Structures are given as structure tokens and as C-alpha cells.
């Protein structure tokens, strides 16, 4: 039973014990276990992605009050779970086209890099109580810099495919990616301020009270920023099917397109994971200490919850134009993020450091709530003025 309690970690230990028994020198043993761990960690997202795609299409269907993948086509399997595998096979068999005049090297490397970065994010996410790829003391900051890494892949894809639309879409998505990095970084800064350290495990440890309760406004900011970086519905002008045919990976087909497609979903999953780690308390939950393996279960539950939230945003809000997206960021999100950082910092200062986490969370909650009220007030006034101007303009017409 003991073994089951902390299943994954124990498996790892068992494997290491197995290797130690062989006559390999110590460093090599260490190297191999590390490599095996990394491989396992990499496989996790790749495997879960299949389930995740199915899960997402089911939710989308439910929201759109339709069935989604089901066994109608005889090969869907119960509730259509094989649908995703069918798509995958289709993806592999499709002909892999390289456009004429395309920059061959850049064109081919782009999808691989995108997928690589999508997987690299998981190295830092805390999956369970003692279970994390590597507890970097710059954890969250590593994630942010990876985000900036993904911009490069977008450029390469857009440029490599030697297609005006692709280049235009690449420029657009770069613009959104770069501009949304700022509110994302600032909201992460707030979380780090409360948690007191950059490493993910410390953040999870600091969340006696889930940061979503302590920092609702910051959570909203982070969510908005990640949504735009994912290129999903409210901000998904990048691959808006009707306007610019499927964004910067328009020229890709076959396995390369598959990589982009999977990478996109993986980013979404990772975003949900980060969101749950930062704001929902990661793998913390009741009885985690007694049965460590429960922590991973708690984490998956929270990830599914946050995916639900993300899907909810995606499939209810209409698509925004590029200038609206950027205006939303520069005129609303970034100033709000800045003010939020100051507000929480000030609130933090009012409470003596010795106060328990609860009071700290309470104070920052108070700051966030006050800030939200003010913002809503401003928005209301601005809205009314806009309406009046509109009315007067019509009147004078």
C-alpha cells in the first residue's frame, strides 16, 4: 500500500535502484535515470494530449449544444474517444507539401521548434507533491522566457512559408504575443510578490489560501494574457478560418501541420496547468500529505476545471479585430496590471510581515476587490460617455 501512496515517485526510485545494482559507474547511473525521468515527463503531455483534444471537442460541442465526437461513424468508439486517434492517423498520412521558393531550412525547423517549446514548458510544472521535472529557483521566469522563445518560431513559420498571408498573420500574432507578455509578466509578478519566490514548488507551497481567492483580479489578468498568447477564440484572429486561412501555418500540411495543431493544444493544456498551479494551488488538496499520489489527482482535477474556464471564455466571446486586441491590451490590461501591482504591494506593506498568510490573503483580496470596483466604475462612466457621444452624433447627423 505504501508503494501505491506515492506511486510515481516510487517507480522512479525503483528504477534507480535497479540501475544501481548494475555495475555502471555512479555518474552514468545518475545520467540515465535523469534521462529516463525527462523522457517520461516529455511523454506525459504527448499522451494526455489525445485525451485532452477529445475532452475539449466534447465541451465545445456541449456549449454549442451539439454532440461532438461520437460513435456515429462506426469508428468513433464509445463517446467518440477514437475520433482523435483517427485524426492523428489522417494527419500522418496526408501529403507533406513544401511551397516553392520557401526557405526550406526555416520552413522545416519551425514546427519542430514549436513542439519542442510546448514540451519544454512541462519541465518546470509541479505535477505532484515531490514530483517536478526540475525545481528551478527561477521557475516561473523560465516559463515567461519560453513564451518569448515561441515568438521566434512564429516568425520562422511565417517567413519560411514564402506566403504573404502567412507573413501578415505572423506579424499579427507576434504583435499580440509581445504586447500580451507585459500584463502576463506583471500578473506573475504579483503572484511572486505574495509567494516570495520564483520557484513553482514554493508558489504552490505558499498557497495555503488559493491565490484565485486572494487575487481574483490578477487571475483575470493572467487568464486574459494567456488566452491571447494561445491564440484562442477571443483573440484567435491569427487562424481565424474565415479571414486569413489558418494563420501562419497555412502552407503546412501533413505531419508539420499536425505538430502545430498538437503544439497549440499542448500550449493550452500547459496554460491551464500554469493557471491552476499559480492560482488554484497546484497539487494541494486535502489528505495530500497522507497519500502523496493524490496530489497529482488534485492537479488533474484543477487542470480540467481551468480548461473548462478557458473553454468557457473561448466559445462564448466573439472574435476581436487586431486593433481591438491591441487596444484592449495597451489601453486596459497593461495599465490595470501596473496599478494592480502597486495596489497589492501597498496593501502588503500595510500588514506587518509577521501576520499569518490568511490576513495577507485577506488584505490582497481587499486590494483586488477595491481595484475591480474602481475599474468597473470607470468603465461604466466611459461607456455612458461613449453612448452619449454616439447619441449626439446620431442626433446631429
Amino acid at each position, binding site marked *: 500500500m505504501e508503494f501505491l501512496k506515492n506511486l510515481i515517485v516510487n517507480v522512479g526510485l525503483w528504477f534507480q535502484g535497479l540501475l544501481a545494482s548494475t555495475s555502471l559507474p555512479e555518474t552514468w547511473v545518475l545520467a540515465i535515470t535523469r534521462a529516463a525521468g525527462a523522457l517520461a515527463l516529455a511523454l506525459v503531455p504527448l499522451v494526455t494530449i489525445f485525451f485532452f483534444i477529445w475532452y475539449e471537442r466534447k465541451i465545445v460541442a456541449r456549449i454549442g449544444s451539439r454532440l461532438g465526437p461520437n460513435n456515429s461513424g462506426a469508428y468513433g468508439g464509445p463517446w467518440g474517444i477514437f475520433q482523435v486517434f483517427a485524426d492523428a492517423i489522417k494527419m500522418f498520412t496526408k501529403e507533406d507539401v513544401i511551397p516553392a521558393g520557401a526557405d526550406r531550412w526555416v520552413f522545416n525547423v519551425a514546427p519542430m521548434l514549436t513542439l519542442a517549446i510546448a514540451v519544454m514548458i512541462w519541465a518546470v510544472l509541479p505535477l505532484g507533491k515531490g514530483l517536478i521535472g526540475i525545481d528551478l529557483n527561477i521557475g516561473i521566469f523560465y516559463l515567461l522566457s519560453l513564451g518569448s522563445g515561441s515568438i521566434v518560431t512564429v516568425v520562422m513559420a511565417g517567413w519560411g512559408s514564402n506566403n504573404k498571408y502567412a507573413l501578415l498573420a505572423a506579424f499579427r500574432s507576434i504583435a499580440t504575443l509581445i504586447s500580451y507578455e507585459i500584463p502576463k509578466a506583471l500578473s506573475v509578478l504579483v503572484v511572486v510578490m505574495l509567494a516570495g519566490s*520564483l520557484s513553482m514548488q514554493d508558489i504552490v507551497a505558499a498557497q495555503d489560501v488559493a491565490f484565485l481567492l486572494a487575487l481574483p483580479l490578477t487571475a483575470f489578468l493572467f487568464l486574459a494574457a494567456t488566452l491571447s498568447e494561445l491564440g484562442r477564440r477571443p483573440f484567435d484572429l491569427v487562424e481565424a478560418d474565415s479571414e486569413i486561412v489558418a494563420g501562419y501555418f497555412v502552407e503546412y500540411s501533413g505531419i508539420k501541420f499536425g505538430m502545430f495543431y498538437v503544439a497549440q493544444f499542448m500550449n493550452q493544456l500547459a496554460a491551464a496547468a500554469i493557471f491552476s498551479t499559480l492560482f488554484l494551488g497546484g497539487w494541494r488538496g486535502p489528505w495530500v500529505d497522507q497519500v502523496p499520489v493524490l496530489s497529482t489527482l488534485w492537479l488533474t482535477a484543477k487542470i480540467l476545471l481551468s480548461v473548462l474556464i478557458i473553454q468557457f471564455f473561448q466559445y462564448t466571446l466573439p472574435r476581436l479585430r487586431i486593433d481591438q486586441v491591441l487596444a484592449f491590451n495597451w489601453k486596459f490590461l497593461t495599465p490595470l496590471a501596473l496599478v494592480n501591482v502597486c495596489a497589492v504591494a501597498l496593501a502588503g506593506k500595510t500588514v506587518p510581515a509577521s501576520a499569518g498568510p490568511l490576513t495577507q490573503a485577506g488584505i490582497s483580496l481587499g486590494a483586488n476587490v477595491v481595484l475591480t470596483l474602481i475599474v468597473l466604475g470607470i468603465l461604466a462612466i466611459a461607456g455612458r460617455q461613449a453612448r452619449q457621444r454616439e447619441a449626439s452624433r446620431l442626433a446631429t447627423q
Partner: protein
Amino acid sequence: MTLQQILFILVGAITLGAALMVVTRRNVFHAALFLILSFFGVAGLYVLLEAPFLAAMQLFIYVGGIAILIVFAIMLTREVMNPAAPGANRQWGSALLVAVALCGVLGWMALNHDWKVTPGPVSADSMANLGKALVDPQGFVLPFEVTAVLLLITFIGAVTIARER
């Protein structure tokens, strides 16, 4: 040859190789991509030198910021550069000579001078006191603020220069 040294050689090779490609490639866009690769290499180097914050900073600023800026610049001035023309100008020969000579001298100096190395473990909270030093009045708060002002002025200047009249 410890694991770390092997890694160092690997990362060093990547960085230097990319740098050489940056300098030699005729197609400027490829040069930019290799520049990004060398930035990654340098980030790896920082990780080996146990300065994780700087590695992340390097990625964040150079790869996320400057590389993109350079790529944008290349795209905006693409049609002006006819790819047929040779990458290097007439004085590349002498430039190569000077570069190699300088590299030789520096390298020789590096190897022949004992740098009185005082190895020691990196303090655990090196990043924390880095942050503190940046805003501590006795520490570096003045240069920090001056840099902020410098950046502000630069960006305003850059915008006004490059703005279409």
C-alpha cells in the same frame, strides 16, 4: 573530463558555430536566426556558470526582444538588399586578419595570466540579494533609475527618428 566540461564544450561549440554563421551567411535572415541560436547558446553558458537568473534574462531580453526587433528590421528592409551581392565588403580580408590577431592576443593573454581564481559555492539566495542590491540605496538604485530614464529617452528618440513624417 567531467560531465560539466563536456557540456561546456558542446554549448561553446554551438554558440561559436552560430556566431560564425551569423557573420558569414549571405542571407541576412538566416544570419538573424543563427544569432538567435547563439543567444540560446549563451543562455546555456550562463546556466553552466550557475547564473540561472541571467540565463532567463538573456532569453527574455535577447531572444524575446532584440532578436525579434532585428528580424522585424530585416523584413522591413528586405527588398532593398539584393541577395546576389556578396555579404562582405572589400575590406573583409584585413578585417579577418585584425579579428584573428586580436583573438590570438586575447586568448594568449587569457591562458598565460593566472587569474587568481577563488572558487566558491554560489550563495543560495544570490538572486534574492541581486534584487535587493538593485533597489538598495547604498547599492545600485541610482544607476538603476538612470538606466530607466535612459531607456525611456531612447525609445522616445527611436520612435521619433523612425516615424514616417
